């Protein structure tokens, strides 16, 4: 029988939530790496028991942990992330040059074809790759050196490479996104990159339609339609139908188009989920009502999903990597909040219930569908 495993990264450790395919009764394991910030955990699509986790603190720096038994036991692997050559400078918040400094791993993306290959998106923004299950990390420096790096700026959370999407059809193509630089694509396995931000409009930067400088919060793709991308930008929900060459806004009737998380239904490539957040200065839902909004038309037309979610006095945030879907017949949708709740819907968002209510602030949620 199928089952699901939900990997939760929090401000104070990692948790593994598991249930059978009914998704009613949950077992909670953890905390793992108690006291450390776990920006992200993710399992290999090739070997679901192979998990990678990013563990860090400002005190002790970066650790990468690996599990080969589905999160029961873990062991540290390599944690040396050295930029290739002299890393140079990017823009600081005030526009002055600031040296590139490694701070932490935001996102780990295991390969679609090899359990020992995994990509890491880091702050200050760069992309690293390991082909030996996390022991050694090599920068794919073509991204940072392609020319626009000196113009990249940190977002409020730091200058992070937070999104990595591997194309399921073309193994040489991948997408990444950086706050605040924008989205980028490679068609040669990471050797060279191009900004793909045409159509983005960011009123907060000097040139609102600049080639780079946009605060992209998250990008997602449905594996059956890899040329179609959906983006939650700082403000605006965007869509591209040509692998990022051009973007158009699909915010439609959303009550606010600020937000962080965005994901696609597992079986319906035009069904999207976002969690509207009031504004960039008030990171919580409008009027204290936690709502997921769903579009079944690939954007523009949205409906609120509220059953089971708090509709008063709720002032949590949902971060960019804190939403995920399972691939069971009736698609499950999951998200975690800064208040420590992990909500699950086993009916594509029609109704929600909390798996857990009182974890530390949730930074990431990834779901594995097993069996």
């Amino acid at each position, binding site marked *: 029988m199928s089952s699901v495993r939900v990997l939760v990264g929090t401000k104070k450790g990692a948790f593994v939530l598991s249930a059978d395919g009914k998704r009613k009764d949950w077992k909670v394991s953890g905390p793992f790496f108690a006291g450390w910030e776990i920006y992200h955990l993710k399992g290999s699509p090739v070997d679901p028991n192979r998990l990678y986790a990013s563990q860090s603190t*400002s*005190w*002790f720096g970066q*650790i990468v942990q690996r599990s080969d038994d589905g999160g029961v036991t873990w062991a*540290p692997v390599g944690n*040396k992330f050295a930029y290739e050559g002299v890393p140079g400078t990017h823009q600081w918040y005030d526009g002055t040059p600031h040296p590139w400094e490694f701070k932490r791993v935001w996102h780990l993306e295991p390969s679609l074809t090899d359990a020992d290959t995994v990509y890491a998106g880091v702050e200050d923004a760069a992309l690293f790759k390991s082909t030996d299950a996390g022991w050694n990390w090599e920068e794919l420096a073509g991204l940072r050196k392609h020319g626009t790096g000196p113009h990249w700026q940190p977002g409020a959370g730091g200058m992070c490479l937070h999104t990595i999407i591997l194309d399921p059809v073309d193994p040489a193509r991948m997408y990444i996104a950086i706050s605040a630089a924008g989205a980028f694509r490679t068609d040669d396995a990471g050797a060279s990159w191009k900004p793909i931000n045409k159509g983005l409009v960011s009123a907060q930067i000097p040139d609102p339609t600049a080639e780079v400088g946009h605060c992209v919060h998250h990008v997602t793709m449905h594996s059956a339609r890899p040329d179609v991308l959906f983006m939650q930008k700082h403000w605006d929900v965007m869509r591209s139908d040509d692998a990022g060459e051009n973007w158009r806004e699909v915010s439609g009737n959303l009550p606010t188009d600020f937000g962080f998380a965005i994901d696609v239904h597992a079986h319906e490539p035009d069904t999207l989920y976002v969690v509207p957040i009031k504004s960039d200065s008030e990171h919580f839902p409008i009027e204290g009502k936690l709502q997921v909004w769903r579009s079944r038309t690939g954007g523009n037309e949205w409906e609120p999903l509220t059953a089971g979610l708090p509709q008063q006095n709720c002032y949590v945030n949902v971060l960019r990597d804190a939403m995920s879907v399972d691939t069971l017949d009736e698609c499950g949708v999951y998200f975690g909040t800064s208040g420590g709740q992990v909500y699950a819907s086993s009916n594509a968002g029609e109704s929600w219930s909390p798996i857990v209510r009182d974890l530390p602030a949730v930074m990431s949620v990834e779901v594995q569908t097993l069996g």
Partner: protein
Amino acid sequence: MLPQHLRTLAGADPEVRVEVAAPVTIGRVLDALEERYPTLRGTIRDYSTGQRRPFLRFFVCEEDWSHELLDAELPKAVSEGREPLLIIGAIAGG
């Protein structure tokens, strides 16, 4: 002496004794510590600079050695094993 998170990470006791050839310096003590516990590499000294991470401090014989050079020779009380090198996480919120 190691802070709790590093003890847990390395599976080490609170107090670790390492053999270090003279002259005994903080740098050499850390080299020996990382040799015994490779997972501590990068957690005390930044990989890119080789220097103490900013949220950690070193104390020796009740004195703050955080700003001494890593190749400064430690007092005999430490090199002879009578006093510890304390590696302490700075008290900060979160």
